[in-house]
């Protein structure tokens, strides 16, 4: 299958599909096969840096552990078709001791623990991935994702898992993969606008007087605590940009930026309206208005254009909720 043939709708971030697919195999989602969960594997870590002595360090996308077998699989979920040589050599060299010592994984029996790496990629990328690994002289198994999750190269040391993936596991359309991770450094600002806006609305409904950027990030990204520093820094910076933009424009009559009293460099977002102080129907209309503002914001972020207050937006003001004129 050529790359073009495995196309995704524009709203799907292609490079997040493999990692979410593997996490999905370890979960119990009724609409995604629990292929690894059913074999006794449990998700141990995601995005965990592990160092192989004398080779280097790699951030392992997913580490899953089978307690009975005292065995872990280290998944590299490829977002594209290129294979980094250094990363691949680290994966190929990592020992159970490395995973325990530098990856903070506890095995049932430390001395007899075993690990193995597996690469996972989209079907359209798997030819290139397999060839790259071959050219490097590495024998890392590769699982490809298409209509099936199938082992296209090599064998796993865990015989059950190997047979299972070699036979192929039927998958739903890949865009329906459960979304555990929703952002990485490639996620465009417009892709983050909706999630951030929704979290702000939940704070507004919760009558949170003010909230910090960190709280916004923790509530928006389920994997916030696991993220590496680069990704955190990137998302914090985009969040700051979005929040400032919203408070100055679409949400200017709902919220404003303040400074945290304990740390002047940190920003706090303060709400300036009491949505709950109104009757039920007015509250409903206010939230409907926030929804329209959210769509407008996402649209202008996609088009990368500045805010232009329109008559249409102003006319949405509800009696009693008009902005103050002073």
């Amino acid at each position: 299958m050529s790359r073009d043939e495995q196309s995704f709708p524009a709203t799907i971030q292609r490079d997040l599909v493999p990692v979410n697919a593997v996490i999905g195999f370890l979960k119990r989602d009724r609409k995604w096969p629990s292929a690894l969960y059913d074999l006794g594997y449990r998700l141990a870590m995601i995005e965990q840096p592990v160092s192989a002595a004398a080779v280097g360090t790699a951030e392992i996308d997913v580490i899953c552990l089978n307690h009975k077998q005292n065995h872990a699989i280290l998944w590299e979920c490829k977002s594209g078709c290129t294979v980094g040589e250094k990363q691949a050599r680290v994966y190929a060299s990592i020992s159970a001791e490395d995973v325990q010592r530098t990856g903070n994984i506890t095995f049932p029996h430390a001395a007899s623990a075993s690990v193995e790496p597996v690469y996972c990629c989209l079907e359209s990328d798997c030819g290139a991935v397999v060839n790259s690994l071959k050219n490097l002289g590495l024998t890392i198994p590769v699982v490809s994702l298409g209509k099936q999750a199938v082992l296209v190269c090599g064998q796993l040391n865990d015989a059950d898992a190997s047979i299972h993936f070699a036979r192929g596991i039927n998958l739903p359309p890949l865009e329906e993969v459960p979304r555990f991770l929703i952002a990485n450094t490639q996620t465009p600002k417009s892709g983050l606008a909706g999630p951030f806006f929704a979290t702000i609305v939940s704070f507004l409904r919760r009558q949170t007087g003010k909230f910090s950027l960190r709280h916004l990030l923790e509530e928006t990204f389920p994997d916030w605590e696991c993220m590496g520093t680069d990704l955190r820094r990137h998302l914090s910076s985009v969040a700051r940009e979005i929040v400032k933009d919203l408070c100055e424009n679409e949400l200017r009559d709902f919220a404003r930026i303040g400074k945290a009293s304990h740390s002047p460099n940190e920003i706090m977002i303060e709400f300036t309206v009491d949505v709950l102080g109104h009757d039920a129907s007015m509250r409903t209309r206010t939230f409907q208005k926030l929804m329209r503002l959210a769509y407008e914001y996402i649209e202008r972020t996609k088009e990368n254009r500045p805010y232009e207050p329109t008559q249409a937006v102003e006319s949405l003001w509800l009696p009693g909720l008009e902005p103050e004129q002073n």
Partner: protein
Amino acid sequence: MDRREMAEILEEYLRNVNVYFDREKEFPKGRGPLKTYIMEAHRSDGESLDHRNAAKTLAGIADANGLTVRDTHDEVLFQVTKGEVGFFFDLLDPRFWVVHTMSNIEQCEELFKSLVETYPHLDYTWPSSGLMRSIQGNGKSLGFAVDFDETQIFAAPESHLIDEPNAVVKFRFGGTRAENWLKELESFAPDALAFSMVKFAREDQATGSYIIDELNEQGRFKAAGNSINLHNQTVSQFLYSYRSFILDIERAARIRSHGHGEGGGSLEGDPLVLEFPKPLRSFKTFVKELVSCRTPLKIWGIVEEVRSDFVQVEAVDLHTSSRLRLDITPEYLRIYLGPEACGNTVARLLRNLQSHVDSTIKLHIPSESVPA
């Protein structure tokens, strides 16, 4: 006042009330059934309540709404009054409050409605049809009400309704032949049996004590009989089942991570999937109504269309203010709960989908089925 005295007062009252609950509005003052509401509460910041801050939360709500709270000799039992309306608030479980009242039902309902709408950290309980029936199954069935109305979500033109076999099913029955009627109903409206009320009796022949209870879809009991103990046992069974359901949802489905902030960590929680027994016939209308911010579903959401039959939604439950993400197809709805989301959000969504889409929709909470 303490728990024993409260029980005596309530039992005395129970013996004098009229058992024809449906005609409560016609009864003279003091003859309406005993009402027991089960409410679900959090701290205003969404955190769990303990006994001390449950009492504080109650006091805060009371202050802002002109209610008077009086302590009793039991540290988790409070008498609350407003004008002619009076309640016993039992905060033995700091999250699930049991509220007994002998006051006029209309005034009580109005007060609770206003409190729940104002305070996102206060909610009704939302038993599924299945849970209601299982509570009824602990006694002798005396009646039920079915209230199914898909036109609230699929507002189809009248011409479509001509061909729709079970668009609106409203049925109320009282009597010992309840189960026979249900068998009949199941034969021609199996997907529209959304129970909005179940009525049942429990008795202890050894002591001659009995209770007639009626449970509605928002966790409210009405009771008459001669034994407050039997009533309390029934309430307690319901509370136990409902609490387990909510805690199971939160344990299994809150998606949260643990790490040191330097990269790496664990990711816990599974999404929940509600499968539609038959594909939604008007997918776009359903999605639009789901995120309309209006009752009954009251969800705010930004919809991203992935395919014409698949959307992803960044959502907020406007009832509990929980942050959610949803994936929706005509065949299923996948729910990702945020790390602090409330299980009551799922219970309410399930309940409303049973009442307005298909009464046989079930929630499967993942459990540890394969040993690790």
